[in-house]
């Protein structure tokens, strides 16, 4: 039982990283119909930003978290206006290609700027572990769980309790309808990108002290985050959250009870099973095709 509880705890903490990535992905996809393949690399950029702020400039970790989040939000805005906005009326494949190109640029840029040597974040509680009975978790991972909970609560309040959030939801539900209601869809789209990339930023700085930093660190979590949004339903933040936690737990249980070699295979298998039996995912919209 203790072993199972530990796997669940491990899975939830890893799942929280996917929650932040997947929520950002699904918000961007819901509004813009763009699969932001660069989301994992934006998370990587944030981790490095946090690393340099803390390790090279001796900045307080929490301040670095806030600043990196803002920086990623601004980066998101720039990406939207210079990459996706100009091709907003182009065929969807152009958006796909632009997203892939952005991924390559970010990876190449990271290799150039940060080098290939693995880096690691050392903060005062890097080596601290929280134990309750026979259950243990690295303190930073406890912070990841707590931080994700706070952020998702704030996001929910923003979407459900503010007019901007309502506009975001409306645009995601029906773009043309939102336009007709006087919602400035292009501004909402830009805001969606900012929110999406800021979420990647938070994920990067939260998990940074718990992993090793490399320019390719974003690819693995991105694959699982994409699986999570498909599992949870494209465009649904609730689906992204639930999907991420479920897949994080599946990954952990597979690593523990079967083999770490096949853990991702189980994650993708779950996604495929969902697609076979419920293509729209847990909370996705039905897609009508003539």
């Amino acid at each position: 039982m203790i072993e199972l509880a530990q796997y669940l705890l491990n899975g939830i903490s890893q799942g929280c990283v996917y929650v932040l990535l997947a929520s950002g992905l699904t918000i961007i996809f819901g509004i813009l119909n763009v699969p932001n393949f660069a989301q994992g690399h934006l998370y990587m950029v944030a981790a490095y930003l946090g690393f340099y702020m803390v390790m090279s400039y001796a900045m307080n970790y929490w301040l670095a978290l806030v600043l990196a989040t803002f920086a990623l939000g601004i980066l998101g805005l720039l990406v939207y206006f210079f990459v996706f906005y100009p091709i907003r009326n182009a065929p969807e494949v152009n958006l796909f290609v632009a997203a892939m190109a952005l991924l390559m640029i970010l990876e190449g840029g990271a290799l150039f700027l940060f080098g290939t040597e693995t880096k690691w974040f050392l903060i005062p509680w890097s080596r601290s572990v929280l134990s309750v009975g026979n259950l243990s978790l690295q303190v930073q991972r406890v912070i990841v769980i707590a931080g994700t909970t706070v952020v998702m609560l704030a996001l929910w309040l923003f979407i459900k309790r503010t007019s901007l959030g309502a506009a975001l939801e409306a645009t995601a539900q029906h773009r043309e309808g939102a336009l007709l209601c006087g919602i400035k869809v292009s501004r909402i789209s830009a805001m969606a990108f900012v929110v999406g990339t800021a979420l990647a930023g938070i994920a990067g700085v939260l998990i940074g002290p718990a992993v090793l930093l490399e320019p390719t660190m974003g690819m693995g979590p991105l694959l699982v985050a994409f699986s999570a949004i498909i599992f949870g339903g494209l465009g649904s933040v609730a689906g992204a959250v639930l999907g991420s936690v479920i897949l994080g737990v599946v990954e952990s249980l597979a690593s523990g009870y079967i083999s770490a070699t096949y853990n991702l295979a189980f994650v993708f298998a779950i996604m495929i099973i969902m697609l076979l039996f419920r293509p729209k995912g847990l909370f996705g919209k039905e897609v009508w095709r003539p």
Partner: protein
Amino acid sequence: MGKKSIFLSVVILLVAGALVCPAHAQQMKSVKIGVISPLSGPLTFVGTSMLRCVQLAVKDINEKGTTGNGPGLLVGGQRYKLEIVNYDDSADPAKSVAGMRKLAEMYSVPVVLGPFGTPQVWATQEVNVGLKVLYNGLSTSDQSRKKGNPLYIQERVPGMYYGDAMAEVAMEKGYKKAAVVTDINEAYVSWGKRFRQKLESLGGQVVAFESVDIKTTTDYHSIMTSFKAKNPDIIFVAMYEEPSALAVNHALDVGYKGKFMVTSDWGVKSEKIVGLDRMEGSIVQAMVHTYYRKYPDQDKRGYATAFMKKYVETYKEDFAQPGLSVYDPVWMFARAMEIANNVTDAYAIRAACPKALEEGKLPIIFPNVDVLKNGLMWGAPELILEVKGSQYKLVKTITVPKNILE
């Protein structure tokens, strides 16, 4: 003074001058040596270190000679300086092959250092004999020298052979139950299997064995949870340096209280990531420079310490361990050229390699004394260390017997 006296004086001066510096009066020719290493892509740090280590060796050889008889090499009465031609293979086996071809065909290099990585080495072994290039490819796989390639040099005993000694030490220390985690790289899996085989033959037990792809695995918590549930005395970790440190950290995160046994990839970075204070009683299988770095007074020959100091002073950053591995082969190849009296014939140079090491005159980091028929440089001992009070205590010095390796 008469005309005859002046003429005689000039002749005497000329002869005296020629006698005093006969070699320096000659123009030094150059012999190109190749370096194939990843200077772009995810292994850039390793590849850059490799190139830099070769550059340092070449600089010293060109200035002082191989055995202090410099400058450069003295071959057949002619002085040669070494000139490096490098190729960036981005750790791609296809590019490693292309690099080998280019270096041989365009620059006529007789010897090459690199490439790095078992797939890259195995790929280049398909072409180097046809191209008549002698090379030291960095591969920790035991299979690399067993392919019968007459022009391949393996600079270090594959790590798996230390699995026996590591298992013996584990049993001596009372760590009878072990869990093993390795990278999926064949060299590390073999290492883990060898350790398991020996431990079980000594009456120990391996309660779990996992191989993971370290390139995609960033979370070892669940693996370590499953290990912890089986209550091992020791967790054997065989991976590159940083993933080893991450795996150890994650084991500690889930409350594992036992010891660790780590391989020679363990180094300064992993010490900083984990903290030696959290590894009390753990065992490290180490190459000599890991120990000398902390305890330079133990480096009786002094070459390892001098090299490490020079590298950091020159490049203002630390080196990647594989870079260190190519330093010695440069010296060996250079001395072998002198012994063979030949700077172009790869076979002649290869035949002279054992003597180059046997002489014991080269300022090499790892004191190898022979090159076996299968191309393995042999003789340098490695160490088993125990972590005690955040320091390393030397437990054993191991030299794997020749007969096992031939």
